[in-house]
C-alpha cells in the first residue's frame, strides 16, 4: 500500500496552522518584513531560507512572541497571536545558541518548562525521561551543560523545547554550531523526531543543503520578501526567478531576447552563436529579455559534436575535482563561462578532458527553465 503524499498546501480544503496575513515589521525606519503572507500547515517541516539579514529570524521571533508585528496579523489555529505573551504561546523555540541554563543539569533544563505548568512531580519525571530517551541523552541527565559536547547540547536544547509538546516548534539555525559530519547525521535525526512527535517544525537556516534535506517546503527569502515557497524539488527544478535559481545550488544563467512559438522559445543571446532552444509554459513577448537557467549536472560535455537541440563549442578553462563529481568550467568563444558537471564513474587517470581541451557542451531543450526576472 502506498502512503498518500503529504501535501496539504495543494489541498484547498486544508486549514493552515499558521497564517501570516500581510505582515509588516519595521525597526525604526528599517523595514525587516514587508507585506508578507504565508500559510504553514500542521505536521509540516517548513524551512525559512535566505542570506543573513533577509528577515527570516525576525519572522521566527514574531512567531515566538519576542517581536511585535507592526502591521498585519499572524494567526495560530485561526487565532490572532498578537495579544498572547511569549510565555503563554503554544510555541516553543530552540535557540541558535541553545540558551541552556548553565546552573541547571540536563534533567532540570528539560524539566524547566514542565515545572512552570505546575505539572505533577511524577508526570514531569516521566515526560523528562521520555524526552531523554527520544534524544538518546539518558546517560547525561545529571551533567551540567558545560560538561557535555556540542552535539549533546544541541539535543538537550531540542529535548527541552519539545518537552511541553508545543503545537509549533521553532528552530533557529539549530545545527549551525555543529561540524559538517555531525550536522548531516543530526538532520536525519531531526526529521525522525519530527515524524515521531508529529510536531510542526519551522526551521530558520542559511544553509540551502540543510533546508533541502529536512524540509517539506522551503521559503526562499530576500530583503523581507518571500521569493518562492515550494517543495525542495520544485525550488530546485523550477525556480521562479534568477535569484532563487542562483541561491539554491549551482546554476548557469544565459540571458537573451526571446522569440516564442507555442511552448518553444528560441533565445538569441550572442552574435555568431546558435540560439538556445528552450521549453516553457509562460508567454514571452517577442524580443523580451529572458534568462535561461540550467543546472551544471544537466549540461553534458563531450569531445565529439553530439546530436542535441543545444550544442555549443568551447574549451576547458578549469576543472574542480570533488571526488564523486567533477565540475568543468567551459569558456565559450564569447567569453561566457558555462559549468558542466559529470559523475566520476571512472578513475581520474582515465578522465577524457584536461585543461585547454576543445570540447562540446550540450543540453536538451527541456533541461533548463526560462525566467522573466
Amino acid at each position: 500500500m502506498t502512503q498518500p503524499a503529504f501535501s496539504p498546501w495543494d489541498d484547498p480544503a486544508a486549514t493552515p496552522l499558521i497564517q501570516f496575513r500581510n505582515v509588516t515589521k519595521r525597526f525604526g525606519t528599517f523595514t525587516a518584513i514587508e507585506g508578507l503572507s504565508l500559510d504553514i500547515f500542521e505536521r509540516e517541516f517548513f524551512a525559512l531560507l535566505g542570506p543573513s539579514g533577509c528577515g527570516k529570524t525576525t519572522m521566527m521571533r514574531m512567531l515566538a512572541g519576542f517581536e511585535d508585528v507592526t502591521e498585519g496579523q499572524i494567526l495560530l489555529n485561526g487565532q490572532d497571536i498578537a495579544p498572547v505573551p511569549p510565555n503563554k504561546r503554544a510555541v516553543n523555540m530552540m535557540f541558535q545558541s541553545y540558551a541552556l541554563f548553565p546552573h541547571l543539569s540536563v534533567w532540570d533544563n528539560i524539566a524547566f518548562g514542565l515545572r512552570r505548568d505546575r505539572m505533577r512531580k511524577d508526570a514531569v519525571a516521566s515526560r523528562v525521561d521520555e524526552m531523554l530517551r527520544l534524544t538518546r541523552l539518558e546517560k547525561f541527565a545529571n551533567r551540567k551543560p558545560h560538561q557535555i559536547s556540542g552535539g549533546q547540547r544541541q539535543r538537550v536544547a531540542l529535548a527541552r523545547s519539545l518537552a511541553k509538546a508545543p503545537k509549533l516548534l521553532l528552530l533557529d539555525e539549530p545545527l549551525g554550531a555543529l561540524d559538517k559530519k555531525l550536522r548531516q547525521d543530526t538532520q536525519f535525526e531531526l526529521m525522525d523526531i519530527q515524524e515521531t512527535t508529529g510536531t510542526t517544525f519551522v526551521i530558520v537556516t542559511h544553509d540551502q543543503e540543510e533546508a533541502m534535506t529536512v524540509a517539506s517546503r522551503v521559503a526562499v527569502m530576500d530583503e523581507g520578501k518571500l521569493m518562492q515557497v515550494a517543495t525542495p524539488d520544485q525550488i530546485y527544478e523550477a525556480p521562479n526567478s534568477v535569484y532563487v535559481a542562483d541561491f539554491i545550488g549551482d546554476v548557469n544563467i544565459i540571458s537573451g531576447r526571446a522569440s516564442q512559438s507555442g511552448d518553444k522559445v528560441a533565445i538569441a543571446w550572442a552574435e555568431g552563436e546558435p540560439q538556445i532552444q528552450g521549453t516553457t509554459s509562460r508567454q514571452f513577448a517577442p524580443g523580451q529579455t529572458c534568462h535561461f537557467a540550467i543546472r551544471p549536472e544537466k549540461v553534458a560535455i563531450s569531445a565529439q559534436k553530439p546530436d542535441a537541440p543545444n550544442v555549443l563549442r568551447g574549451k576547458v578553462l578549469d576543472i574542480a575535482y570533488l571526488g564523486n563529481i567533477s565540475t568543468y568550467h567551459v569558456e565559450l568563444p564569447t567569453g561566457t563561462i558555462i559549468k558542466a558537471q559529470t559523475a566520476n564513474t571512472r578513475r581520474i587517470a582515465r578522465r577524457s578532458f584536461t585543461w585547454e581541451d576543445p570540447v562540446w557542451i550540450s543540453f536538451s531543450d527541456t533541461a533548463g527553465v526560462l525566467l522573466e526576472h
Partner: protein
Amino acid sequence: MRRLALIALPYIWLLALFLVPFLIVLKISLSDLALARPPYVPQWNFGDGWDALKAFFGSLDLENFVFLSEDDLYWRAYISSLKIALISTLITLLVGFPMAYGIARSPEEWRPTLLMLIILPFWTSFLIRVYAWMGILSKEGLLNQFLLWLGLIGEPLTILNTNTAVYIAIVYTYLPFMILPIYAALDRLDDSLLEAAEDLGCSRIQAFWLITVPLARNGVIAGCFLVFIPAIGEVIIPSLMGGSGTLMIGKVLWEEFFSNRDWPVASAVAIILLLILIIPIILFQRNEQNQREAER
C-alpha cells in the same frame, strides 16, 4: 633555574611583607608590657648568646590572650564589629544589586559612563570623602538644613556620631566593591537565556528569580566578601563618624596601640581579628575557585 627564580619572587614578597610582620606581631602579642622603648619585654639581640635566647622564649606567654577573654569589652567589640559589618554588607547588597542590574541592562553605549561614575569617587582621598560626609550629616550639615528647609523636621537630627552614620559611611565607601563583581556576573548573562525562560512559560519576574539571580550568585558572594572583610576591621569610619557608643574592634585596636601604648594587648587583638577574618577569606577564595571551574 629561571623558573625557580620567577616563582621565588612572589614568595619572597609574601614572606617579607606578610609572614615576617605577622610573626613580629605574634611575638609582641606574647610579650609583656614594659615602660621602655619599644614598650614591651622580653627583647633579644643577636650576640646575646644561646642562654639569652632560651630565657627569651621562656618568658613568652599567653597572658594577653587570657586578659582579652576576661575583659568583656573586647568580646563585645568583636561581636559588635561582626554585627555592623554584617548589616552594612546586607544594606550594600540591597543598594548595589539594583544598581549593578540597572547598569547591565542599560544601553551598551551608556555602560562605560555609568561604570565610570561608580569608580570616580576613588579618585578622591578616602579621608576627604569621610570628612565630606561629616559635613553632610552633622547637626548644622547639608542634610539637616535641607530637611529643615523642606519643613519635614522641626529639630535637627543627630546622625553624626551614631551607628547610623557608621552604616551610611561603610555602605557608601564599599558600594563599588559590591557593584562591580555583580555587574561582571550580570554582564556575562546571555539575553537569550531570559528569552528561553520566557518561551518555556516563565513570567518576567519568574525568569529573574530562576535565571538571573542564580547566575549572579557568584558575583553576589564575591561582592559580599569584598565588603564584609574590610568592614570588620574598619578604623577610620568608626573613629571619625561613630559615637562613644560605637564599638568596633578596629577602633579598640587603635586606642590600645596609640592611646594606651599597650602594644602586647593590641597585638593580641590584631591576631584574634586575623583569625576571625581567615574563615571568610577562605570561603571567598573557594567561591572564586568554583567560579573559575564553572566557566571552564
